[in-house]
């Protein structure tokens, strides 16, 4: 019998899921943050273009968000530029999201990221074209790997870390938007809005990569970080997603979709299904459904 890479990914997910389940005999979270109502919008987009500006604005209006006067932080997924690989959240989607929040009367919009294993954030911004995109729209970028830090008690204890030093820019924001690239991941099954929050952990303190989180358990660390900084909103880039050996070496998967949600668990469950992965088999999504959001019962707008 031929064992494919997909089999390995599913097996790895199942093993880490079992290990996590074993550790979950007792409740590990401090607060139940599940909203009364979770909403998801699945927008159709054939390509990255200027039309995204209007599409994202219209999509956000479906949610009747109260953004007026708020500081909005957009957290995309930037890893490194690899030719012909859909690794990063597309610059045009990030630009469109920034513009849409400004149109909704946000006091400020900041794009912020702390790439995981590449120390040269400026090089990534240049190579992905994001630096030019943000300059054109006059949007500020903050390198979370080198921001001022605040010692922060984690609001769940799956990892056993207790606390993390987290960037002041994230903690001071009124409205955090996770903007993942929709991808499979060889360790966690998928990398979506919750895994994307790894990027707020600062490299200047924890290194490139943030290996402390790997040793504390990737799925466990995702839960602890998201329990502490739960994204208020998700805009997931699934126009061109990645399948196979993600997050770096997979292949294109055209989903022609942008997923918007006010619930990161609902967003990730929806994106996982679009990738052909059952969210019940992704340990951090399943566990997050007990205290962060809804995996099954959400309203599709």
């Amino acid at each position, binding site marked *: 019998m031929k064992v494919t890479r997909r089999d390995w990914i599913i097996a790895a997910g199942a093993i880490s899921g079992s290990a996590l389940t074993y550790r979950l005999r007792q409740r590990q979270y401090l607060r139940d943050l599940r909203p009364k109502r979770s909403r998801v919008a699945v927008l159709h987009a054939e390509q990255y273009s200027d039309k995204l500006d209007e599409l994202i604005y219209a999509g956000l209006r479906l949610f009747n968000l109260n953004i007026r006067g708020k500081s909005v932080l957009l957290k995309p997924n930037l890893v490194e530029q690899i030719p012909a690989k859909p690794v990063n959240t597309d610059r045009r989607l990030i630009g469109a999201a920034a513009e849409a929040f400004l149109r909704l009367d946000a006091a400020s919009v900041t794009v912020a990221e702390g790439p995981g294993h590449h120390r040269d954030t400026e090089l990534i911004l240049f190579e992905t074209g994001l630096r030019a995109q943000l300059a054109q729209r006059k949007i500020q970028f903050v390198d979370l790997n080198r921001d001022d830090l605040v010692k922060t008690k984690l609001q769940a204890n799956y990892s056993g870390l207790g606390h993390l030093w987290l960037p002041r820019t994230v903690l001071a924001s009124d409205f955090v938007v996770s903007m993942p690239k929709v991808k499979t991941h060889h360790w966690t099954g998928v990398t979506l809005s919750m895994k994307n929050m790894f990027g707020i952990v600062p490299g200047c*303190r924890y290194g490139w990569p943030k290996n402390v989180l790997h040793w504390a358990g990737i799925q466990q660390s995702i839960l602890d970080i998201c329990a502490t900084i739960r994204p208020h909103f998700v805009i997931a880039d699934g126009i061109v997603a990645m399948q196979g050996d993600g997050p770096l070496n997979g292949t294109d998967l055209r989903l022609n979709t942008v997923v918007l949600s006010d619930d990161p668990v609902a967003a990730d469950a929806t994106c996982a299904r679009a990738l052909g992965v059952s969210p019940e088999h992704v340990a951090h999504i399943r566990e997050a459904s007990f205290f962060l959001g809804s995996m099954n019962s959400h309203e599709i707008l």
Partner: protein
Amino acid sequence: MDLLMRVQNPDGSWPAFEGDDPEGCWVTALVLIALRFVGAPPEPIEKTLRWLLHSRGREGHWLWKWKFRTIDRRVQFDPDKYGWPWFPRTVSWVIPTALSLIALKQSLQCCPSEQAAARVHVGTEMLYDRACPEGGWNAGNGVVLGTALRPHIDTTAVSLLALSDDKQSPTSQAIKWLREASAECRSAYSLAWSAISLSAHQDDAAGNRVQRLIDLLSESHSLDIETLSLSAIAIVANEHDANPFEVRM
């Protein structure tokens, strides 16, 4: 210097910033290089050196060596060849290993020690073990799950500084890669590391990289402190042959 002296941890390591938890981390090697360069008093230097000699990647422990050889073989590397981690209780990575090698090799110049020489040997082996197939270095392993990773400019430049006294063929291949990769680089940070490294290897391209760096700096409106510091070092290293990262064995 006053700030540095004030924030050293009791165990000899250094925090990432003033007010940090006293666990020590990768900046310890960087501080040791700085202390030697400015001629700091011997006591903090010796304490730092002791901590650095005891710090090692988690794969350097027999239990984890066994795990990586038997159970966890998804990422292939030789756990006998270990270096230094970014943060205690994690595995070795390229940049903290390279910075630690520079600090230890500089220490060996004045104070030879068998323990330090042994760590330098194993750390050097680790760097060669993790090199990318096309030359140069990524953050850690050169191959993950059967896929060759692309080198990074800064990681390659720092590794080459640590190996500037070593003329093995992987080093020559990495210099060639760095020379090509930095030729069109538009990041001041990576360009500064390239210039510092190529200067240490007395490579003809160093002068051009410094000039491009100066041009880039004059066009940039905002630069972080790390990039500015590295740029200053790159310019001085090229003009006055005073390179704090240089290793002469």
